[in-house]
């Protein structure tokens, strides 16, 4: 049954359905409503869970880590500066192969201070060794969160569910929450085989010298690559329960016959789809919704790009001094195609800049029009607002 819920409230209730035993969090906009929601469910006796309100994000990730190795399902959530403050621990969680789930309510990074949505935060920890799943809608955020716990625990890898701050977290819309029975049937009780137990004492996080370290990294890399199967299976199994899916590793939408492709991560997809649907005079596009950014679905991506002449990779983050972050990765993945599409790479919607329906036309004009843009650019930036020297 659909309920009118704010994205964050829906996520809080979904997380409760997953029965975490320990939740640790530190407040940061725009993640706050999620953890406030969980705290209230705990206070009302609706969720039997230790809610640890810590003194920093560094500790939030660390408490979750400790809880998971001591045998409890653990969850945390953060955004922006919080992700960076916990970055050290995020790498450690992944390197130790500890299964836990966190929500990243995507937000820009300082400086200058900006509390609004882009994806620079999760991109900054792209190499931490976590599974990263990006959600296009709040319904996907709900369904992906349930799936994330199963993926994490089956793969013994942490999963970051990336949900665009405000655009999703603070938007009220009709959403379908699964029932407790549906989640319980789908998600078995937490078990971590390498956990800490006095009955079988083991040492975790030891000093690993050069003669073993490369193999540790190799195993981790392979585990992430193998997780692709589990991500797809988690989605298809969940679809059998609730009758809807999130697209597995990626989803091809829009016009499948189009020669123009647009690849996106997160909620911007809806805007582009509406723009295309609203104006039949615009060139048609095939949309590629990249859901699993880590592991990076190279094979699935090649298949999705089959028959494209042009592919626009649109991101909400950048690597200053280089250009896009996802764009070059996509280009590398497609290079072995027989006829790879020409890849254009843009960033847009940084720091919460509104992305209007006109974005679609802007993108199309930039790659198909007479004044084609060369190289990476922030497509919605207006350099004329800057002093001459900074343009």
């Amino acid at each position, binding site marked *: 049954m659909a309920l009118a819920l704010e994205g964050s409230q829906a996520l809080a209730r979904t997380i409760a359905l997953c029965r975490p*035993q*320990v939740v*640790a969090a530190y407040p940061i906009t725009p993640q706050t409503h999620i953890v406030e929601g969980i705290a209230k469910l705990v206070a009302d006796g609706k969720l*039997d*869970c*230790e809610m*640890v*309100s*810590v*003194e*920093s994000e*560094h*500790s*939030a*990730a*660390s*408490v*979750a*880590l*400790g*809880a*998971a*190795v*001591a*045998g*409890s399902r*653990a969850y945390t959530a953060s955004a922006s500066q919080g992700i960076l403050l916990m970055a*050290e*621990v995020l790498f*450690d969680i992944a390197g*130790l192969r500890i299964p836990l789930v966190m929500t990243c309510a995507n937000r820009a990074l300082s400086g200058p201070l900006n509390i609004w949505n882009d994806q620079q935060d999760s991109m900054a920890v792209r190499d931490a060794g976590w599974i990263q799943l990006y959600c296009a809608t709040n319904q996907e955020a709900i369904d992906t969160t349930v799936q994330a716990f199963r993926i994490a625990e089956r793969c013994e890898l942490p999963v970051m569910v990336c949900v665009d701050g405000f655009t999703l977290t603070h938007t009220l819309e009709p959403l379908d929450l699964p029932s407790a029975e549906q989640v319980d049937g789908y998600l078995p009780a937490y078990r971590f085989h390498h956990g*800490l*137990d*006095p009955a*079988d*004492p*083991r*040492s*975790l*996080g*030891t*000093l*690993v*010298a050069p003669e*073993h370290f490369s193999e540790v990294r190799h195993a981790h890399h392979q585990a992430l690559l193998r997780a692709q199967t589990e991500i797809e299976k988690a989605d298809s199994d969940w679809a059998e329960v609730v009758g809807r899916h999130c697209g597995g590793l990626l989803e091809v939408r829009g016009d499948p016959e189009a020669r123009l492709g647009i690849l996106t991560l997160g909620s911007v997809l809806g805007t582009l789809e509406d723009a295309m649907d609203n104006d039949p005079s615009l060139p048609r596009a095939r949309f590629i919704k990249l859901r699993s950014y880590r592991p990076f679905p190279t094979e699935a991506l090649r298949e999705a790009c089959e028959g494209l002449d042009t592919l626009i990779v649109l991101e909400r983050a950048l690597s200053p001094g280089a250009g896009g972050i996802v764009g070059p990765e996509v280009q590398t993945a497609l290079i072995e195609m027989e006829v790879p599409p020409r890849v254009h790479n843009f960033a847009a919607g940084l720091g919460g800049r509104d992305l209007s329906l006109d974005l679609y036309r802007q993108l199309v004009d930039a790659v198909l029009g007479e004044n084609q843009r060369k190289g990476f650019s922030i497509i919605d930036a207006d350099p004329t607002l800057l002093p001459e020297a900074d343009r």
Partner: protein
Amino acid sequence: MNEQPLQSLDALRAQQPRFRGLESGHRACQGCGEALAARLATEAAGPDVVIANATGCLEVFTTPWPQSAWRLPWIHSVFGNVAAVAAGMEAALKQQGRATQVLAFAGDGGTFDIGFQALSGMMERGHNVLFICFDNEAYMNTGVQRSGSTPHAAMTTTSPPGAVRMGKRHMKKDILSIIAAHHIPYAATASVAYPSDLRNKVRRAMDTEGASFLQIHSPCPLGWGHDGSLTIEVARLAVQTGLFPIIEMERGELIGTLPIRDPKPVSEYLKLQNRFRHLFADAYRARKELEHLQAIANRNIERFELRGVGIEKYDTEGADTVHRGGDRWA
């Protein structure tokens, strides 16, 4: 008394059912105070514990993969988060309804400096965790750099004495007062020179519900510049001079001290260690710094009323003195 055949020491030891959480064969230096303190602490804690260990010597010398000297479940995450990892383990065990207790181990860097925020948060939230700080007064694992715990005037590689410096310019952080301000149920100091006192405090802390804190003075022969055979003597002198007071606190109130029978001049402690060598130069500033350190010791003795009133069973001479025949006190 019945005549009993003499037995070798090893045979007698084998008959003693003693739990060892930290086995021998690890890679600590000779005379390492921290290794000794960790062994004593885990012996007293017993087998039903889980340990979170901050980055540092203790982590490195006990777990060179694929070896481990721990007979207890143990995790190392990063340098500054040991109290938070322990808090998470405690929250999990509590939620599961298990009685297993949680220990957090850190050096002084992981306690006074980089780990302090997480420690303060853990204590404020009242997690049932015993946090043990193995205080060797500098960053030894990285090669002896000054920490917030390094005593005033001590030489480290980042507080070297020179033409215009006399070692560390700042005071040793009074960590126990800061801990006391959290009003946790139990906080204490101990020294490897007084092992039965140390063990009693571990047991007492573990019998206490809530956060507890134990700071164990643990000499580092390499970093302090003394012979490995002098670890206990150096540690004992730190207590006997008043430079490292042995005290106990409940809810922030002082409840017990180890009285000093005859306070010794600080120079007796300092002169054994190369890190204070520059204070014995024939120079005005060296003499001033010695006076300064003596004043710190005097202040400790006065503040905690450490001066014993006579010969006491549990003072700096009596405690842990073992006499021939096995009698602890003649």
